[in-house]
């Protein structure tokens, strides 16, 4: 999700950007139930619908939550959004409803791409001696530096390309846009072709394309705000194409998510609605170069025992040379991120670690150290086997396959049961925390913000903030980041000390506000020992406002770019060119086709050649090609319940009253087809497992889809709930049915992820649903998980609030000692 955005527009949906709620006239939402931006989205939708001047279309197999209040619900078949979006693109191209000016100014649409099939340069940009991408200028009739502002670039046609830098190839050159025309005007992307695959009839697709075009071009809005573009040209107003889009895990949790998400960004670019009034807007610190510079560290020569790593463990790969693999192409990292399994795994691949550690692939480990992730349950695929792997022993030695597990949790989660050492953490109310710009935006698009949390409750049990534990470990291990030269602690004050005084690069620390000697510089500035006091005085937030002239076109807005560079968000104030055509994808494709120094092992070649495409392609979710669609005809999804946060809402009695157990929701017509009625008990089977569930019928659900609320099902005894709690006796966890590895192909089992980013394909799951009155509901485990040391038996009654009554009020005495 984020990767697709960052490689394409240098920003992303998710909580990295937002629709221009104020000005948009047409808002399309793809696959969002809640999002990280959950409250802002609710506020935005409320504003948008109250104003009543915009249309809100929700593309989602299920009509609940946000989709319930959409003006139009498009109940798409899971995994097919790419086709739907490409059909919209097809229609816009067919009708010439494209913002060419936007494309030539802000994207690489006019850049020349070398057409020299069978050479190492084919499909790469044609570059000049200074490595500058080139374009064909129709004024001078010459091939020139594509970034020049005085040219009239050709958007189609064939030109003879200057011989490539390394003389390897000459050949033709075509503008990237021509390749795009070729690709999407093809009838395989016409509404009529994709209708049966997406479950959306062609008429609807055409109409929506028409509405998009109408909103973008007929309802163009202008704000009378002067601004200066990257080339220093002044404009007296800001023109907006008021079409905005947002997408989330409905797109990214499929194995074709990266390309589908890129397709959506391309649709936005064609409509000219990136960071313009009424369009999608970046939140600072975005946009960043697409992609940003830093590469992931971790090559063999970059890691040596006792020494800090040469750079950050996460980064942005742009060519096979950047991969973290050995000479045989085998992964170097335990999660196989940045290997041929997932070359641009910008987030790492946490969900594969337990499997790899258990298998000793790529290498065995001594200790598995985890924090704040319920990895034996809802955040693992294939939960059943994962639990086996956590407890599996080596027959020879009798040792655990994963010798030692250290885990820090604040509650008695399912994972706690498998830890050799538990580090009981405080809750977020009992410690200092920091929500940093270095991590992700918590602001809106009009200015940066960051925040802290301060302790508001003193712990009543033997717990310790995990950050303190980490810092102390750092000192004990003598890590340079945490120790002075004399080996003593660099941050004796612990985490608060670290927050105020740690600097990533000179002048840049976790918190942007109130830096410098005079505590008055923001973004960049010397560490300020009193920084936290300033935050507390300001309600724990720091927020800054952009000047009106900085608020839009941030990717090409000089005032903004200069400001961003000063703040340290971007290295230089150069224009951020949007990548309609993605050269890094082509580099990997070429490698898979046998070009270049670093090439994938044989069994990777097809998959990389097929999926790494410089222009978005659609391929069926991998499950579909492994699993017989006739045997497993139904897609199975989960949705975030708005009232519960993953697994740990259940330790709160109020929230568990709202979602005490989960049902399997099914379209009424589909159910009738299965001879099922409301409340029936069913067996839900995937090729990888089977669970019991109670079904509930609904109208607003795609007919090929069933779904349930995420992470409601619990293990008996977990979260200190009673053995007979509905969570573990009626509810279920869909993860038992989701495989973490795809079936073997040429003897190798790929992870069940997007082949490009390694994003877990949670939603590729296919199942069949069978009526079974005798099926066992619940987690199936006979024995309840033991209560963790120091955990008290739960209360029989909660009288929380009685303590606020006046002394001597009769109600204080009711209900015995229960609160």
């Amino acid at each position, binding site marked *: 999700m984020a990767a697709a955005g960052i490689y394409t527009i240098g920003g992303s949906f998710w909580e990295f950007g937002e629709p221009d709620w104020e000005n948009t006239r047409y808002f399309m939402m793809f696959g969002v139930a809640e999002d990280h931006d959950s409250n802002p989205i609710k506020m935005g939708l409320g504003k948008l619908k109250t104003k009543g001047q915009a249309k809100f279309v929700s593309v989602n197999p299920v009509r609940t939550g946000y989709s319930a209040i959409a003006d139009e619900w498009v109940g798409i078949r899971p995994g097919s959004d790419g086709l739907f979006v490409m059909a919209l693109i097809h229609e816009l191209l067919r009708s010439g409803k494209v913002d060419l000016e936007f494309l030539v100014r802000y994207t690489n649409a006019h850049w020349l791409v070398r057409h020299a099939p069978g050479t190492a340069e084919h499909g790469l940009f044609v570059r000049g001696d200074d490595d500058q991408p080139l374009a064909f200028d129709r004024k001078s009739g010459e091939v020139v530096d594509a970034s020049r502002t005085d040219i009239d670039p050709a958007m189609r046609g064939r030109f003879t390309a200057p011989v490539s830098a390394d003389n390897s190839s000459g050949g033709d050159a075509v503008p990237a846009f021509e390749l795009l025309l070729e690709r999407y005007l093809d009838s395989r992307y016409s509404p009529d072709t994709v209708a049966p695959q997406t479950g959306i009839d062609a008429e609807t697709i055409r109409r929506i394309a028409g509405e998009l075009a109408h909103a973008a071009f007929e309802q163009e809005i202008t704000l009378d705000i002067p601004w200066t573009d990257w080339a220093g040209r002044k404009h007296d107003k800001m023109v907006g194409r008021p079409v905005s889009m947002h997408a989330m895990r409905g797109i990214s949790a499929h194995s074709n998510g990266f390309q589908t998400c890129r397709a959506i960004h391309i649709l936005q670019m064609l409509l000219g609605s990136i960071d313009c009034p009424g369009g999608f807007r970046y939140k600072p610190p975005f946009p960043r170069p697409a992609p940003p510079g830093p590469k992931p560290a971790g090559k063999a020569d970059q890691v040596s025992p006792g020494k800090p790593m040469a750079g950050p463990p996460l980064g942005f790969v742009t060519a096979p040379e950047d991969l973290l693999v050995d000479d045989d192409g085998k992964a170097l990292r335990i999660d196989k991120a940045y290997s041929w399994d997932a070359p641009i795994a910008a987030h790492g691949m946490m969900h594969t670690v337990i499997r790899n550690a258990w298998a000793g692939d790529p290498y065995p480990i001594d200790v598995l150290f985890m924090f704040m992730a319920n990895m034996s349950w809802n955040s693992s695929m294939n939960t059943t086997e994962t639990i086996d792997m956590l407890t599996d022993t080596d027959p020879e030695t009798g040792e655990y396959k994963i010798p030692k597990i250290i885990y820090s949790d604040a509650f008695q989660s399912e994972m706690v049961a498998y830890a050799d050492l538990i580090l009981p953490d405080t809750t977020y109310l009992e410690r200092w925390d920091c929500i940093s710009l270095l991590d992700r935006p918590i602001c809106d698009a009009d200015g940066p913000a960051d925040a802290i949390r301060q302790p508001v409750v003193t712990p009543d049990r033997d717990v310790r903030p995990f950050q303190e534990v980490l810092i102390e470990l750092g000192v004990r291990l003598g890590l340079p980041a945490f120790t002075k030269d004399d080996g003593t602690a660099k941050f004796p004050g612990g985490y608060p000390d670290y927050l105020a005084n740690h600097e990533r690069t000179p002048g840049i620390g976790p918190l942007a506000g109130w830096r410098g000697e005079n505590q008055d510089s923001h973004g960049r500035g010397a560490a300020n020992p009193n920084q936290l006091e300033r935050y507390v005085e300001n309600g724990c937030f720091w927020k800054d406002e952009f000047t009106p002239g900085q608020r839009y076109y941030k990717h090409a807005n000089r005032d903004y770019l200069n400001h961003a560079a000063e703040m340290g968000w971007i290295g230089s104030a150069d224009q951020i060119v949007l990548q309609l055509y993605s050269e890094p994808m082509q580099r990997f494709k070429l490698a898979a086709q046998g070009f270049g120094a670093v090439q994938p092992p044989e069994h990777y070649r097809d998959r990389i050649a097929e999926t790494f495409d410089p222009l978005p392609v659609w391929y069926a979710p991998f499950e579909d090609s492994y699993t017989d669609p006739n045997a497993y005809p139904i897609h199975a999804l989960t949705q975030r319940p708005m009232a519960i946060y993953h697994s740990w809402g259940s330790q709160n009695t109020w929230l568990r*009253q*709202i*979602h*005490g157990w989960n049902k399997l929701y099914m379209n009424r017509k589909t159910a009738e087809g299965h001879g099922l009625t409301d409340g029936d008990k069913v067996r839900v089977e995937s090729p990888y497992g089977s669970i019991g569930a109670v079904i509930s019928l609904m109208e607003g659900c795609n007919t090929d889809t069933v779904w349930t609320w995420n992470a409601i099902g619990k293990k008996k005894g977990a979260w200190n709930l009673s053995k007979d709690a*509905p969570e573990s006796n009626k509810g279920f966890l869909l993860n038992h049915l989701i495989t973490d590895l795809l079936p073997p192909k040429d003897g190798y089992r790929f992870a069940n992820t997007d082949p490009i980013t390694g994003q877990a394909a949670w939603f590729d799951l296919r199942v069949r649903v069978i009526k079974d009155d005798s099926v066992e509901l619940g987690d199936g485990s006979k024995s309840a998980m033991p209560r963790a040391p120091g955990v008290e038996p739960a209360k029989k009654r909660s009288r929380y609030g009685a303590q606020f009554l006046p002394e001597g009020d009769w109600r204080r005495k009711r209900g015995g000692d229960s609160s």
Partner: protein
Amino acid sequence: MHPAYSVIFFTTASGAGYGLLIWLALLAAAGNVVPNPVSGIALFVLALGLITAGLLSSTFHLGHPERAWRAMSQWRSSWLSREGVAAVITYGPALLFALGWIVFESTGGIWLYAGLAAGVMALVTVACTGMIYASLRAIPRWTDATVVPVYLAFALATGGALLVAIYSVFTPVPPHGIWPVVVVIIVAWALKLLYWRRIDNAAPVATAESATGLGHIGKVRLFEAPHTGENYIMREMGYRVARKHAVRLRRIALLVGGAVPVIAFAAAALFIGPITLVAALIGLIGVSIGVLTERWLFFAEAEHASMLYYGASDV
């Protein structure tokens, strides 16, 4: 509605007690009783005993029985309050009536007036009980015109059955003392049948569509209840008895509580002599079973409007 046993017992027991009181008043008025301590103690202890037991049991389901006295204060607007007031007032004349009957062995003069007052207050009290239910618009079927008459009729039926049964212990009751009871029993069941007929055919008063106001979009159905668990409203109002079950119970009630007593008492009236007592006792037991079943159904079959928010399609 959840059929709470305390409430069922209260309405039936006190109903019978008040019914008996009314019959005694009528006897006194008709002037053809020979009051004596023995029968008097038996009759009044039973009447006032049932009334008191009922009233007490009705306080069991209160969250704060110790505050029950407060329930008298709102007679201006609340039928429950009025019932309380009437019930308490009834004790006065009833005790006088008993005093005359048992101690002074008289039902004439002031004792008669006390008796009549007691009878009237008993009637009023039972009517109030009926009105508590009949006035609840949230339970449309209870607002049926037959509800109060049914309460009165069954009070008299059970009271009458008691009267005959008790008397038979001492002396065989003459036919003209039994036939009225038979008539009342028939009337009571006739009214009940009418009530059942009417609630079965009544047009719904409110629907899921009117409860949510979403009817203009289409048929409304509950997709998700607010909570996955139960709540107080669902427990109290959500009780539903299966149609088949209800029909069976109605038949039993009618047979055991109607047919059997009618035949038994008729027999008692026709063949005066030793069998009267047995017949009367059979009749009494029958009526009691009948009224308990009828009362249980009265609650169990009633649908509360609030259930429209929890999946009911109409009430």
